[in-house]
């Protein structure tokens, strides 16, 4: 306690503890969904730590990247574990962000006054997906190389700025060593900086505004609403769940390791069945199904425009869902959410079954 006192004298820890113990977390049937954001945060922390350890040995470059990852997993003590945890937690990170987003959506937590929290969360999801996209190429293996080629091709089909985007991503006309170096820079410097700042903002809003409850709960009389203190009750539960998630990651790392595969060869033909990462699969599968031309628009361009419009609508839900701001539920937006889940899940399953 001497240390606490020593620090407290200097930076007033008491007020922070007071804030944490005073902070109340609503208790109701949906309390469980509050943990998803916390798990996403935990996975991001895991990513940062394992990512820093990987940087110590990883060497970007077309002639060194694959070899250095191979060295990490085969020669460096516990290198395999660090790489597996990084890969698995990256996937779980995006999965939990998706789950967190949908629970927030159905709880109508985006309604006034939490619109900015929703906007920042949505951008964090996009950044997380870009984290995954840029990190996937770094081992410089065959699958990653061609998946990046296909992925950046799609970016190249965007009207007006497509060509610029493609060259910006690839650092040239083709996926090459220059692309790898660029992705590495984005993955370990640009994205962590932007993501951390935005995450800080997102968390600050959550702390300042407190936990949101669905409209039905909000409309209950005060005496019928239950709460638990954030610290230590909710924080202990959070920690408990984080430990379980860590154990699951360790289990996946040992029994379901990610294959390194063959080194990328720009001159080789693309292997059969090239697929993007699972979180891009629903878009990839949809683009595959769209005919070559829809009216007078090129099919791929039409698909990209549809996804852009859908993404924009999703982003602007707090603005569009007028009923939510009045503390009511809108059937239309409920069905939009259900449709989004069914569409994403259906297309993903379809994509993997063909």
């Amino acid at each position: 306690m001497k240390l606490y006192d020593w620090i407290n004298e200097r930076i007033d820890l008491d007020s922070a503890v007071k804030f944490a113990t005073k902070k109340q977390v609503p208790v109701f049937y949906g309390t469980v969904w509050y943990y998803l954001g916390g798990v996403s945060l935990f996975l991001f922390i895991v990513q940062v730590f394992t990512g820093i350890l990987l940087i110590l040995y990883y060497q970007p470059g077309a002639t060194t990247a694959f070899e250095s990852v191979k060295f990490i997993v085969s020669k460096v003590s516990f290198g395999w574990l660090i790489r597996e945890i990084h890969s698995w937690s990256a996937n779980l990170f995006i999965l939990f962000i998706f789950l967190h987003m949908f629970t927030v959506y159905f709880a109508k937590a985006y309604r006034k006054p939490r619109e900015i929290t929703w906007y920042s969360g949505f951008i964090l999801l996009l950044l997380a997906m870009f984290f995954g996209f840029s990190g996937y190429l770094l081992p410089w293996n065959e699958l990653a190389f061609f998946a990046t080629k296909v992925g950046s091709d799609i970016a190249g089909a965007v009207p007006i700025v497509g060509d610029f985007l493609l060259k910006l991503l690839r650092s040239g006309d083709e996926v090459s060593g220059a692309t790898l170096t660029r992705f590495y820079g984005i993955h370990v410097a640009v994205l962590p900086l932007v993501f951390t700042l935005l995450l800080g903002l997102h968390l600050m809003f959550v702390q300042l505004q407190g936990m949101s409850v669905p409209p039905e709960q909000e409309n209950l009389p005060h005496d019928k609403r239950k709460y638990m203190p954030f610290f230590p009750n909710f924080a202990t539960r959070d920690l408990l769940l984080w430990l379980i998630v860590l154990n699951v990651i360790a289990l996946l790392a040992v029994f379901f390791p990610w294959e390194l595969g063959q080194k990328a060869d720009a001159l080789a033909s693309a292997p059969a069945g090239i697929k993007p990462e699972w979180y891009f699969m629903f878009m990839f599968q949809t683009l595959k199904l769209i005919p070559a031309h829809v009216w007078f628009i090129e099919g791929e361009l039409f698909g990209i425009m549809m996804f852009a419009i859908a993404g924009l609508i999703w982003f602007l839900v707090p603005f569009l869902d007028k009923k939510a701001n009045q503390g009511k539920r809108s059937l239309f937006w409920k069905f939009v959410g259900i449709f989004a889940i069914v569409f994403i899940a259906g297309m993903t399953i379809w994509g993997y079954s063909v």
Partner: protein
Amino acid sequence: MKHLIQLLFFICLSVSWVITASSDDSDGCIACHQIIDEDRDDDEKIMTHIMEDVHFQKGLSCSDCHGGNPNAGDDEDEAMWDVDDFVGAVDKKDQPRFCGKCHSDPEYMRQYSAHIKTDQESQYWTSHHGQKLTENDEHVAVCTDCHGVHGIYPIKDPRSLVYHMNVPTTCKRCHSDKDIMANSGLPTDQFDKYKSSVHGTALFDKKDIGAPACNDCHGNHGAMPPTILSISDICGTCHANNAELFKGSHLREIFIKENIKLCEGCHNHHDILKPTDEALNWSENETCSHCHSDGQDKANRLAGTLFNIIDSLNNKIEEAIETVDLAENKGMEVSELFFSLEDAHKNLIQTRTSIHSFNEEFVRKTSEDGYKAADAAIIGAEQALTEFGFRKKGLIVFSLILTFFVIVLYLKLKSMENK
């Protein structure tokens, strides 16, 4: 009536202009033969084929081979029969000399390629075909039988009758025909045997143009059946190590003494099958017992020993593959071990080749590197499996520690909430 006559005259004039315009003005042979071709079956049309012919493509025309006067117009006598150097359809016995006029002239042929050969005719006369033709036996192949008549393509053109993939089918046209081969004393089953052989399968089924066709063993223009001694040189062109090892073995002298063709004695000729290790298995295979029919102990023992060396190396490699696969399926990084497996497999091929020395010590020594490579793969894979075991144990310990903390936290939480 006057208008009708004028109309008919105009039509005739137009038709004759169209005919003249559609033919090559500079070559009367082509102009007439195009008209003659109209009444012929497709495969007999001279002009259809000649347009794609390599000679025509290089700028030669009918008169360059057949003589005559291509500028004589419609007069057949003036174009052909009254011209001294005119040669119509060429007699079979004159065919080699007919083509040889140009193809045996280095100065003339040099204009088409600096490396072009001009010994085809002279080689031909030394061939079995050429010798028989000299004896007025016309049941033999001449230039046109193999290369075609007016539709001759360069040998690297897949449409050519002598393009590598097409050679066996071209030779088959005569050599599998019982009527043509009736007086030759030769069998007619070579093609069928070749087709199912290791070489035929490679050429026809795998489309491997590196696989030998008839001409690779028998020669092209100087085609002859190989003699006892020349066989090892012919096979040794591709199978150099096997031929060299056999050359140094004690069996070579015995084969020559017993009048057994060197490679053919064990491997046959047109029906050469893919050799298997089982060929050395005395009890189940007749390869050795053709000559060693009395079950001589020494030969029997040697074959058995060689079989065991190869078989045990094979088993060792299979064990290595299984162990590496097992480690790989556990998700371990074992890509470097595949280099050892590749080395072991290369050595297995070398060991199989080394049996042509019929020297137990040499074969055993050759196989040593294969065992070393396979052992290295097994050791590496076992280390990977041990590492996997360590990871599993580590996971159990880690899970137990985490579970302990989870339980402690849970109990703490419960006691906290009960207060």
